[in-house]
């Protein structure tokens, strides 16, 4: 995962159009009690509310909480639990892991020996080739899930393949995609990754119809929006799966949804995914681990247990903006998956907040000062 470590750059104004009014969510100590009466020196010098907000942000802030991986509580701290735990470690690393690696290798062998012939020999017969490739991709994803001893409970009606329909889900790790893909071959929009993941993306995922984006390019947004629209209109394209948060969040919170998926003129089918943390914390903290390490961690844990809910498809209501629609769907998903909503854009991981928010605070303070100056 290419993280932009080092200087954070201020986000371009283009990206601002995505965000609803943060002020509606933020605790604004200064504006709760609108000060009245004549302006005095103490009012100008008393910066305590703003300092309190600054200190509050230093002590705890809702954004950092979204990306905190919760390290499991050590439970192996006494005479009989510790040997049990040691036994567990030995079992996981020396028995489970090799077994899983073998299963995965077998899966890859089967997959590649079917996929490569199908891909090249059926070049002429597109419809059949696509159908077979779809089945094969579902197969390899099932093998992946088996390699983590994935226990996935699917709730709700299986999505029927219809045109003009997109699927949105909350995002915890790249394995979200694999877990959903084993049930239905979705086309997905993803950040292009380097390394072996990138190789997989450009070869196999290409066959189910994936769209790439590049976070660091500003112009990219328009190109991607166009591709999204084209894909969703096409009748025999695979249904599109979008993760509107734009980044991996730790499965306890949800960050703001980007409106791109909600202005395609399609029905939006929400999917909620919740991992059971007792077995393993599936959150992929891309700042701390590479994807390979993340997969290895999953393969040496006991199991990946999660619930997937396919929720009722939603349409844009008359008079609703794309942003309101996005927030409404985020609400539906967050309630189902037990996630707390925070008013931050996931991309703030990579860039600074725009000066607009600070300016809003400055503006309200300035107006209050000027108003009170008039009062006698």
């Amino acid at each position, binding site marked *: 995962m290419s993280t932009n470590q080092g200087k954070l750059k201020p986000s371009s104004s283009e990206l601002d159009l995505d965000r609803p009014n943060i002020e509606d969510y933020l605790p604004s100590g200064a504006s709760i009690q609108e000060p009245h009466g004549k302006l005095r020196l103490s009012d100008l010098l008393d910066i305590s509310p703003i300092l309190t907000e600054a200190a509050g942000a*230093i002590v705890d802030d809702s954004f950092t909480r979204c990306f905190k991986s919760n390290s499991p509580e050590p439970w192996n701290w006494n005479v009989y639990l510790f040997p049990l735990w040691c036994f567990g470690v030995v079992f996981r690393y020396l028995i489970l892991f090799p077994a899983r690696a073998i299963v995965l290798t077998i899966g890859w062998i089967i997959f590649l020996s079917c996929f490569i012939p199908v891909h090249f020999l059926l070049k002429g017969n597109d419809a059949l080739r696509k159908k077979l490739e779809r089945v094969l991709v579902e197969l390899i994803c099932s093998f992946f899930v088996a390699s983590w001893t994935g226990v996935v409970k699917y709730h709700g009606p299986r999505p029927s393949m219809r045109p003009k329909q997109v699927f949105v889900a909350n995002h915890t790790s790249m394995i979200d995609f694999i877990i959903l893909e084993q049930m239905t071959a979705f086309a997905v929009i993803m950040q292009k990754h380097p390394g072996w993941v990138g190789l997989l993306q450009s070869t196999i995922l290409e066959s189910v119809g994936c769209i790439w984006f590049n976070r660091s390019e500003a112009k990219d947004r328009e190109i991607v929006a166009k591709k999204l629209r084209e894909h969703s209109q096409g009748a025999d394209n695979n249904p599109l799966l979008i993760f509107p948060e734009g980044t991996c969040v730790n499965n306890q919170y949800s960050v703001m949804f980007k409106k791109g998926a909600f202005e395609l003129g399609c029905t939006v089918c929400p999917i909620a995914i919740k991992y059971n943390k007792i077995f393993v914390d599936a959150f992929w903290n891309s700042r701390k681990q590479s994807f390979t390490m993340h997969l290895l961690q999953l393969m040496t844990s006991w199991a990946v247990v999660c619930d997937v809910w396919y929720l009722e498809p939603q349409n844009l209501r008359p008079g609703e903006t794309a942003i309101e629609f996005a927030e409404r769907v985020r609400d539906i998903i967050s309630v189902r998956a037990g996630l707390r909503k925070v008013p931050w854009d996931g991309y703030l991981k990579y860039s600074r907040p725009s000066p607009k928010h600070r300016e809003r605070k*400055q503006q309200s303070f300035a107006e209050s000062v000027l108003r009170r100056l008039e009062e006698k």
Partner: protein
Amino acid sequence: MGNSSSMLTQYDIEEVQQHCSNAFSQQEIVSLYKRFCQLDRNGGGFVSAEEFLSVPEFAVNPLSQRVLRMVDGLNFKEFVAFLSAFSPRATLQQKIEFIFKVYDSDGNGKVTFNDMLDVLHDLTGQFISEKQRKQVLTQVLEEAGYTKDSLLVLSDFVKILGSSGLKMEVEVPVD
């Protein structure tokens, strides 16, 4: 305390508690340490300006640069001492002293007209003109019995802010 080891001993906690004049309980100090390590991503033993500014809630604050000047590069002990003004156990005097330090950027114990003007500029941005700011400040200063050339010291601040019901408290989340 060493570098980014995530274990604090009882000695360490007591030392920090003493340094901040008992403004925080031992549990709060442990929570603050977890937070400090979380912010100090590169494990250098102090939180840099970049690391503070990566907290969006902090970066959008109008006074973030001033606060940053005071908190940049502090080690954990000094970090807790810095935050002690925001503890509910801190006295009004300590809170006013903190506010005074924010204004007195050159640390000479005197707050000038320009110091106050600068802070007002941070608070109001481009939404009031420089001329208007000077006007407003002069007017309220004169009404309070000072002039444009007055140099305010800490006792002046105590007099001005002492009766205004100052609330400046932050809750440290303790799990």
